[in-house]
């Protein structure tokens, strides 16, 4: 075959292959470099702090490498209990978000309305304002003289001397604000998975005698599960390490694992323990993501 090729073709192919060989590392180089510089190296530094291989200059003296901070943390510390408390809060928030966002996404995707993308835009409109502003707005709503209490005073259900004070600076406030902030993130992946649903399956279910509820339960819901799982993770991962919202509306019971990490770095100057807590969180989130991705095939969300 090579004998039939005109002279000069083989070198051209070789040159093209060489170019292709260079293209792959060229394309991958930037993201890989980014990953190394802004993820792997910082994580390694945090890892070094966690075993005291690196330490703050304000603590001079001998610093042998030690796993003490890891042992203290995993040995049933208050920090570990706080982690599970934060996981519980995040699970509730994520579940709540999915429950609230699913009907909205369902309506937008399957109701056949022509204005679904306009409505979708309305849904994500709060994202056009700053995160901080949206959280602070809840202080105005939930405060002792806020919108909710003023309404209760107006209706006579509560006296101005006795407002509902548990609304703000509480665990309830943290979960409410987090749910509000993350709902659009949840609605989007569910909308995508429902919007790409093959409508003929619903018609077939109907032809075979399924009621609307049965069609939803046996067809729509199972097919939208990858979107639901992705949505759940979208909320769970950032909220389990959240610290801004609890700092602003948390009070005495809304203190979360993320606040603990921030305090260790900023207030206690205990970067060793802070690094342990940060790496543990990273590890748990990575494992959870891998498990969900492996068994529930989140990739289907993109594939539709």
């Amino acid at each position, binding site marked *: 075959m090579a004998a039939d090729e005109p002279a000069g073709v083989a070198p051209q192919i070789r040159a093209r292959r060489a170019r292709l060989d260079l293209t792959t590392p060229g394309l991958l180089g930037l993201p890989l470099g980014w990953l190394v510089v802004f993820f792997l190296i910082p994580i390694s530094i945090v890892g070094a702090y966690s075993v005291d291989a690196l330490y*703050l*200059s*304000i603590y001079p003296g001998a610093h042998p490498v030690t796993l003490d901070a890891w042992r203290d943390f995993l040995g049933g510390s*208050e*920090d570990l*209990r*706080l982690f599970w408390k934060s996981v519980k809060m995040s699970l509730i928030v994520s579940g709540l978000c999915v429950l609230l966002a699913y009907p909205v996404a369902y309506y937008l995707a399957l109701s056949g309305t022509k204005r679904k993308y306009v409505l979708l835009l309305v849904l994500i409109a709060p994202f056009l304002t700053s995160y901080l502003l949206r959280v602070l707005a809840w*202080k105005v709503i939930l*405060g*002792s*003289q*806020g919108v909710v209490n003023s309404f209760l005073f107006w209706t006579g259900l509560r006296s101005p001397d006795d*407002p509902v*004070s*548990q609304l*703000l*600076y509480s665990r309830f406030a943290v979960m409410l604000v987090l749910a509000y902030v993350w709902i659009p993130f949840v609605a989007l992946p569910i909308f995508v998975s429902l919007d790409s649903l093959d409508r003929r399956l619903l018609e077939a279910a109907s032809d075979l005698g399924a009621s609307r509820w049965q069609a939803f339960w046996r067809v729509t819901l199972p097919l939208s599960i990858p979107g639901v799982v992705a949505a759940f993770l979208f909320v769970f991962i950032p909220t389990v390490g959240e610290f801004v919202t609890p*700092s*602003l509306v948390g*009070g*005495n019971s809304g*203190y979360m694992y993320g*606040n*603990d990490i921030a*305090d*260790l*770095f*900023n*207030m*206690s*100057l*205990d*970067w060793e323990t802070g690094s342990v807590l940060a790496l543990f969180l990273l590890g748990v989130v990575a494992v959870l993501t891998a498990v969900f991705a492996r068994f529930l095939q989140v990739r289907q969300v993109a594939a539709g």
Partner: protein
Amino acid sequence: MSDGQDLMERRLSREDLLKLAAVAGGAGLLAGRASTAGAAVDRLTAESGRLQVLDWVGYEVPQLYGPYLKKYPGEKPQFTFMTSESNALAKMSAGLEPDIVRPYVGYVRDFAESGFVQPWNPKLISNLKDLNPFMVKAGQYKGKQYGIPQDWGFDAILYRTDKVKPKAISWSLLLDERYAGKIAWWDDLYMLVVAGYYLGIKNPWQQTSAELKRSQKLLTSRKHVVKLFWSSETDMQNAFAAGDLWIAYAWPADWVAMKNKGLKVRYVHPKEGAISWIGMLMQGKDTPRPEHAHAFVDAWSSKQSGTWLENNYAYGHANTLARPTSKDLLRALQLTNPNALKEPNAHIDRYIPNRQEYAKRWREVKAS
């Protein structure tokens, strides 16, 4: 070697000297005029860039360093804010290099030993002679003047007189079950010191592990009465003004702010003794602007700045010539009492040797 020479040497690095030589040589060749070279020398030896100040929110207002702006018009310092001394140390450990930072007296030793600050040259601070000698001494560490005292005041209790009927003027007000959900604690390990005083621990600043456990247990058991742990004074003031809080661990400025909002409030020193403090301006170790830094601290030390601070923030000022306009304020700040900050009138903020254990215990109180 004179102090002026010290500064000159610090400012002129080898690179600067080479530039000077080049400019001077070039100017000589081109114009032969000594004045040109002199101007170049002035330009290159002048400190450049805005003064970087790591300070507490509220202290960025120009009235507090007016003479500095007069000396360097158009060179308003650039402020970064700290929420506590630990927060400042964390920022500096992470690479922030301020020219000026303001820890309080209990942290003089921590900062001096941290390697992030250097002593001042007292001869370059003309107003130093008017500062309270006791406070000036409190800013020294190993015989060197690391801190120049400025603002001072108390950690005490602020409460609404129309809502709260105290059984006793004591730190117990911060633990009072009758006002559960209306109380604010400061988000700082000093709460353990307060608990120590309340429990009658012999030295609340150097509690043993067993004593710290007792203090922690007390705070944990009363945590449910707390509405807010405040780290930002503004947050606390907003919550207090909105009626979410009736009792708070507070500073004198909070009392003034709430009075100005028309609330019926009292600011009281508990019978166990308030905690007193003195703000210390410190100079960053490798500051490239030592002259500006000295001018800034001198401006803060002036009678003019001190009077403004007292009138507007209700904090005392180390300048003994500064006096507030209001006699009420004069009395409330005990400005005529030379021992206002000292035992037994108040417990002055001091070095805590096992600060890390205090910090750990305080975190555990919040996490519980």
